[in-house]
C-alpha cells in the first residue's frame, strides 16, 4: 500500500495545481468574507477572520476530496485499477492509498489556507495540544469525507459525475455556524444549521482556536465524523464488491 501511496502522492506532486485549486477557492472565499461581507457581519467580539477560519477549513476539505473521486475514476477507466487488482497485493490497498493521499494533500492545502489566514490577521491563542486536536479533527473529517468521495469514484459513469458530488458539500458550511451565527436564521433553517455536522465541527475548532475548552460539541463532532466514515466505508466496500 505504501508503494501505491507513493504513486498517487507523486501524482499530486506532479500536478501541484490540484493543491492550488483546492486551496484557492477557500482563500478567495476568505478574502470575500473578510473584506467584503465581514464588516457587516456581527459574530462575536474578535476579528471576523478568527470566526471565519474553521468554516473555511471545512470548505477546503470539501473541495479537496473531489480529487480523490477524480483520480479513482481515472484509475478505473484507464484499466490500471484492474491491473492492480490482478496482482498479488491486498485488494483494499488500492482504495486506502487514494484515501491517504487525499488526507496528505488536504493537509497541505489546509496549511496553505491557515498561513493565508495568518497574513489576513488570524491569531490564535491555542497551545500545542489544541493545535494537535484541530489537526486530529480535520484529519478525521478528511478521512470520513474521502471515503464518501470513493463512492462516486467507483460508480460514476463520467468524469463530471465523479467530481460533481462535492458541490453540495462545499455549500453545506453556508447553512451552518461557519460564516454567521445561527441565531438570526429562521426556525427550520436554524434547526437544520444547528444539527448538521459542519456546525459541531466548526464550533469545536473555533473553541480550540480561541484557547477555550472544546466543550461537549467535540463529541458531537467526532460522532458525526465517525458516523460518516463508517457509513461511507461500508457503502464504498459494497460498491467495490459489486464490481467483482
Amino acid at each position, binding site marked *: 500500500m505504501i508503494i501505491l501511496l507513493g504513486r498517487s502522492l*507523486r501524482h499530486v506532486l506532479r500536478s501541484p495545481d490540484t493543491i492550488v485549486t483546492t486551496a484557492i477557492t477557500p482563500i478567495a472565499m476568505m478574502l470575500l468574507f473578510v473584506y467584503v461581507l465581514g464588516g457587516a457581519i456581527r459574530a462575536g467580539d474578535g476579528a471576523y477572520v478568527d470566526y471565519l477560519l474553521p468554516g473555511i477549513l471545512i470548505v477546503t476539505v470539501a473541495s479537496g476530496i473531489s480529487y480523490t473521486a477524480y483520480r479513482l475514476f481515472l484509475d478505473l477507466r484507464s484499466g490500471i485499477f*484492474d491491473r*492492480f487488482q490482478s496482482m498479488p497485493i491486498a485488494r483494499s490497498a488500492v482504495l486506502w492509498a487514494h484515501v491517504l493521499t487525499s488526507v496528505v494533500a488536504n493537509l497541505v492545502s489546509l496549511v496553505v489556507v491557515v498561513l493565508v489566514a495568518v497574513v489576513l490577521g488570524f491569531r490564535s491563542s491555542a497551545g500545542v495540544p489544541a493545535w494537535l486536536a484541530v489537526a486530529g479533527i480535520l484529519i478525521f473529517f478528511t478521512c470520513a469525507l474521502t471515503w464518501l468521495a470513493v463512492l462516486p469514484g467507483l460508480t460514476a459513469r463520467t468524469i463530471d459525475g465523479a467530481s460533481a458530488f462535492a458541490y453540495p458539500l462545499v455549500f453545506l458550511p453556508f447553512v451552518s455556524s461557519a460564516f454567521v451565527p445561527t441565531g438570526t436564521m429562521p426556525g427550520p433553517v436554524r434547526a437544520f444549521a444547528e444539527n448538521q455536522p459542519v456546525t459541531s465541527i466548526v464550533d469545536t475548532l473555533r473553541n480550540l482556536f480561541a484557547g477555550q475548552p472544546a466543550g461537549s460539541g467535540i463529541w458531537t463532532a467526532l460522532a458525526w465524523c465517525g458516523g460518516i466514515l463508517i457509513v461511507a466505508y461500508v457503502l464504498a466496500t459494497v460498491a467495490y464488491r459489486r464490481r467483482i
Partner: protein
Amino acid sequence: MMAGMSASAAAIEVRGVRKSFREVRVLRGVDLEVARGSIVALLGSNGAGKTTLVRILSTLLRADEGTVRVNGFDVRTQGGDVRRSISLTGQFAAVDEILTGRENIVMMARLRRLKNPGRIADQLLRRFSLADAGGRRAGAYSGGMRRRLDIAMSLAGDPPVIFLDEPTTGLDPEGRLEVWQAIRELAAAGTTVLFTTQYLNEAEQLADRIAILHDGTIIVTGTLDELKRLRPAAKTLEDVFLDLVGGRR
C-alpha cells in the same frame, strides 16, 4: 510449494464456465485447456465474451458456474495464489501516464516485492526497446510504445502465466509488429500466454493453438493445421472461422 502443486496440471484449465450479466448470458459453458509454455489465441468477434473470460481467469470477475484453475490454483478459493502466478495486460494499455516508463515498471516490481526493482526495470526497458524513452512520462508515448511498456510491466517478476486482452487493438501496423515480436519472445522464454484477438492473422501468426469463442462457448480448438483440416475446403483461417461461425448462425 507452488511449483509442486502445479507441475502436473495444465497452465490453465476451464470447465463449464457460465457467466451472465443480468439477463444476458455471456458465457454459456466454456471449456478450455492451455498447456504450459504454449501460446493460445482466444479468437472471437466483438462481444463474444473474450474479455469476460479473461477477467474470470484473472480473478477480476467471479463465474456463476464452473471451475477455473490457473497454474494449478482455483480462482475461486485460491485467488491470492492465482494472482501471484499471473499477469494481466488489459484491453487498454494500463500504464500510469503521469509516471515515467521506468517508474511504471519499478512500481510493478516493487508491488511484487522483487529485489532490485531498478535493475529489473532497466532490463525490461532494454528488452522492449524503450531504454531511451524510460525517463519520459508514459503519457507522451505512442500507442505502440505504450503497449510495449504495458507488456513490459506485466513481465516484472516473470509470472508463469500471462493474459493479454486484445494486445494490438488500436495499434498501427508498425506497433502491431512490435507487440507480436514481444509476445514471441515471451513464449521463447517459456511463459504461458493466452491472448484474445479479433484478428485472424494475429492468431495465425502467433498462436500454437487457437480457440474460437462464439455465442458464449468455445466452438473449436486446435492448431492452425487441425482447424484447416476440420474444413478441408477452407484455405485460410478466415475461411475456417467464417465457415464455423456462419454455420452456427
